[in-house]
C-alpha cells in the first residue's frame, strides 16, 4: 500500500497508512489502545508518529474524515457545523504550529473563545497528543467557559461540585443523609445528581421529587438531576416531573451512541422538552453529559481510532446541545482502557483540555476502580492539577466511597482542600447561600462552624426525637 504518511529516521523508513493511524500511534501509551491493537509498536515509533502528526496541516482534518461522512452522524455534525470564518486565523497552521499558537501570548481567552467553532475535535485531539501535561494545563486555564441554570458555573477562580448522594437501593433516608452531609460541607453547586440504582420511570419520578423538595425547602441556588437514560427523563417530563437537567452518557461515534440507546435527534428532542419547562433562573443550559475514554472500544464502535480521539469527538456531540455540565468519568471504565494512575491522570488532563478548547463547561470525575493500579494519592495529584487547570467542577461524595457504583471519586473534604489551597470559591449564587445559612462562617477560607446550622438543626432534631434518642 502506498503510504501517504512516512518518515525517514536514519536508515529506517516509518510508514503510516492513514491519518487515523498517525493519530493512534502518536498517542501517549495506554491500555485501551493496546487492547484495540492501534498502539505504537515501540517508543520510537510513537515519537516518530508525533513528528509526522506535527507536520499535518490543519486543513487535512477538514478534507479527510477519520470516520466517513456517509457512515456516521457525528462526522456529519462535525463537518456540517464547522465555521470557516472562525477557522481562518489558524488555517495556515500545522498541528505542531497550532500547539505553538495555543501556548503563545496572542492566544488570549477572548481569541480562544472566538476560535471554538473553527476547531474540530480531531484537530484538538491531534494537538493534545503533542502536548505535555503542563501545556494541557496552561492552555485549558486560558479557556473560560461559563454555563448557567440556577447559578453560574465556570467563572474564573471558582470551583463547583456535583453532590452525588448515591444509595444501593435508592432509599430516601439514606439519600437525604448523604445530601445533608454534602451540603454541610459546602458541596452541591454544580448539581445534586443521583445515579439511580434502578433505571425506571417510577424510581426516577420518586427521586426527582425528593431532590426538588430539598432544593425548594432550603431555597438552594442549584439544580437537581437523576442520571437516568434520556428516554426515561423525557417520559418524566411528560408526566410533569420537576426535571431541571437532562442527563445522558454519550460517545464520539454514531455506533457508540447507539450502544447507549441514543441518537442526536433524541438528544435534541429531550433538550427541547427540558427548555419548555423554563425552570432555570439565571440561565437555560439544561443538558448534563458524561463521557469517558474507552467507551467506543468497549462498544466495538471505534472504527479503528484511538480512544482519546473518539473521546474528543464526543465533545462535538455535547457542544451541539449547550450543556450546563460535561464531565469525563475518567477512571471508571477500568484498567483494560486506562491501566494505572499515570494513564488516568494523563487522560483526565487531555479530556479537560480538549473539552475546554472546544468550548465545553468541563468537569472531571477524578476516580478509579479497585482493579486499576491507582490509589488516593493518584487522585490527589489529578485533582490538584485540574484545580490549577481551571476545571469547572468535580464530584463530591461522602468519604470518596460510592457505595452504589463501587468506585472511588473525590470527597466533600477533597473539594474543601482544593478550595483552600488554590483559593477557589463556589459558584457565586451558591456561595451567598452558604454564607446566609451559616454553612461557611468564612467563605474565603473556607472555614466551617462546629455546630449544625440552624436551618438543618431542626430536621435533625425531629429525626432524633422520632428515633427516641433526641
Amino acid at each position, binding site marked *: 500500500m502506498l503510504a501517504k504518511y512516512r518518515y525517514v529516521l536514519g536508515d529506517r523508513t516509518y510508514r503510516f497508512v492513514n491519518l487515523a493511524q498517525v493519530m493512534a500511534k502518536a498517542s501517549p501509551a495506554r491500555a485501551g489502545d493496546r487492547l484495540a491493537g492501534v498502539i505504537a509498536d515501540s517508543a520510537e515509533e510513537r515519537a516518530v508518529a508525533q513528528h509526522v502528526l506535527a507536520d499535518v496541516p490543519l486543513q487535512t482534518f477538514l478534507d479527510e474524515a477519520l470516520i466517513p461522512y456517509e457512515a456516521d452522524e457525528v462526522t456529519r455534525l462535525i463537518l456540517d457545523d464547522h465555521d470557516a470564518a472562525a477557522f481562518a486565523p489558524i488555517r495556515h497552521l500545522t498541528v505542531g504550529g497550532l500547539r505553538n499558537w495555543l501556548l503563545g501570548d496572542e492566544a488570549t481567552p477572548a481569541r480562544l473563545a472566538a476560535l471554538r467553532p473553527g476547531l474540530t475535535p480531531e484537530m484538538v485531539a491531534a494537538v493534545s497528543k503533542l502536548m505535555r501535561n503542563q501545556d494541557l494545563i496552561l492552555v485549558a486555564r486560558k479557556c473560560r467557559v461559563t454555563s448557567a441554570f440556577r447559578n453560574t458555573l465556570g467563572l474564573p477562580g471558582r470551583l463547583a461540585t456535583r453532590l452525588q448522594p448515591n444509595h444501593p437501593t435508592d432509599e430516601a433516608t439514606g439519600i437525604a443523609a448523604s445530601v445533608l*452531609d454534602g451540603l454541610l460541607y459546602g458541596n452541591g453547586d454544580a448539581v445534586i445528581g443521583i445515579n439511580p440504582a434502578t433505571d425506571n420511570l417510577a424510581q426516577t419520578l420518586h427521586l426527582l421529587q425528593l431532590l426538588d423538595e430539598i432544593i425548594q425547602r432550603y431555597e438552594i441556588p442549584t439544580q437537581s438531576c437523576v442520571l437516568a437514560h434520556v428516554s426515561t427523563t423525557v417520559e418524566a417530563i411528560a408526566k410533569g416531573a420537576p426535571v431541571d437537567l437532562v442527563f445522558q452518557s454519550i460517545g464520539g461515534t454514531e455506533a457508540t451512541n447507539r450502544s447507549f440507546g441514543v441518537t442526536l435527534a433524541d438528544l435534541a428532542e429531550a433538550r427541547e422538552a427540558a427548555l419548555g419547562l423554563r425552570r432555570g433562573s439565571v440561565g437555560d443550559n439544561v443538558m448534563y453529559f458524561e463521557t469517558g475514554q474507552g467507551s467506543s472500544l468497549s462498544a466495538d464502535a471505534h472504527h479503528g481510532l484511538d480512544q482519546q480521539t473518539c473521546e474528543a469527538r464526543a465533545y462535538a456531540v455535547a457542544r451541539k446541545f449547550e450543556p450546563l455540565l460535561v464531565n469525563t468519568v475518567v477512571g471508571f471504565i477500568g484498567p483494560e482502557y486506562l491501566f494505572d494512575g499515570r494513564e488516568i491522570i494523563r487522560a483526565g488532563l487531555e479530556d479537560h483540555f480538549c473539552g475546554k478548547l472546544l468550548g465545553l463547561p468541563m468537569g472531571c470525575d477524578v476516580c478509579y476502580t*479497585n482493579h486499576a493500579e491507582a490509589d*488516593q494519592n493518584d487522585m490527589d495529584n489529578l485533582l490538584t492539577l485540574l484545580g490549577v487547570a481551571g476545571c469547572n467542577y468535580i464530584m463530591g461524595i*461522602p468519604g470518596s466511597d460510592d457505595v452504589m457504583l*463501587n468506585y472511588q471519586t473525590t470527597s466533600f473534604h477533597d473539594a474543601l*482542600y482544593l478550595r483552600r489551597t488554590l483559593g477557589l470559591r463556589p459558584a457565586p449564587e451558591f456561595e451567598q447561600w452558604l454564607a446566609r445559612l451559616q454553612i461557611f462562617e468564612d467563605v474565603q477560607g473556607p472555614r466551617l462552624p462546629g455546630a449544625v446550622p440552624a436551618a438543618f438543626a431542626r430536621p435533625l432534631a425531629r429525626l432524633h426525637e422520632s428515633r427516641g434518642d433526641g
Partner: protein
Amino acid sequence: MAEDAHDPPAAEVPDGGVIDNPWASLRAYTDARIGLGRAGISLPTAPLLAFQLAHAQAKDAVHTALDTEALTRQLAGLAHPLAQTAPLLLATQAGDRATYLQRPDLGRRLDEPSRERLAEAHGAAPADLALVLADGLSARAVAAWAVPVIDALCTALAAAGPDWRLAPVCLVRQGRVAIGDEVGERLQARAVVVFIGERPGLSSPDSLGLYLTWAPRPGVTDAERNCISNVRRGGLAPAAAGRRLAYLLGEARRRELSGVQLKDRSAADPDEGPPRPGNFLAP
C-alpha cells in the same frame, strides 16, 4: 511567617483537634461514609486509616489467586452426588493477573491444556448443567460463597425435579463471565452457570455474581444471560441465591432460553429492617 509567630499557642486536645459531625448518627441509614468529621477541613486520621484498610482489602481481593485446593475440599464435603466427582482445574489464555486485567478477550478463552482436559473429561453423555467457578475480580468472593450457593442449589434442584445431569464442577483461573460459554459448549451442556467474583467495592470486597446461560457457546451476548448479583454478607444470602438460581434454571429448561426474555418472578425477599423516615430534610 512573621505573622504566624504571633498566633497564640494552640489548645492541647488529646486527638489533635477533630471536629465531630453531630449528624454522624445518620450512618444508621446508609453505608455511605457520612459524618466523618474533620481536622481543619481535612479527613481525620481515624476515617483515613479506615478507608486505607478497606481499599487494601479490595485490592487484595483483586490480586488473590483462586485457591483451587480449598475449593476442591469444600466441594468434596457436600452431601450431594456432585461431591463424588473431582472438579476440573482449568485456566484461560490470560496467563497472569496483569494480562487478565488488560486483556478481557483472553480471559474469555481457555488455554490449550484446559481444552484437552475438557475433551478427556466430558465422555459420551452430554450434561444438563455445568457449574463454572471463576475468580473474576475477587477470588475471595468465590472462596466464601460459591460452595454454599451450590449446596442450596443442589438441594433445591433435587426437590424440584426432574433430575439434572451435572457435569464435573470446573474451576477456572483468570476467567471472565464469558468463559462459561466455551466450557459449556465443550462439555455439551444445555446450560451453564458461572460463579464469579464481582468488581470489589470498598464495602464489598467479596461480592459474588451468578450468570446463567442457556445453550452456551462462544459469541453469546449479555442479553442472553440472567444474572444474580451481590451475593455476600449484607447482600443476598447464599441460600436465597441458590433457591433463586434453581427457579431460573427450571424456567430456562422449560422454555429453553435465558436472558431478557426470562424474567425472575420468584418471590421477592421481604424487606429487612424497620420502616425508615424517608426524606427527613423535607418531610
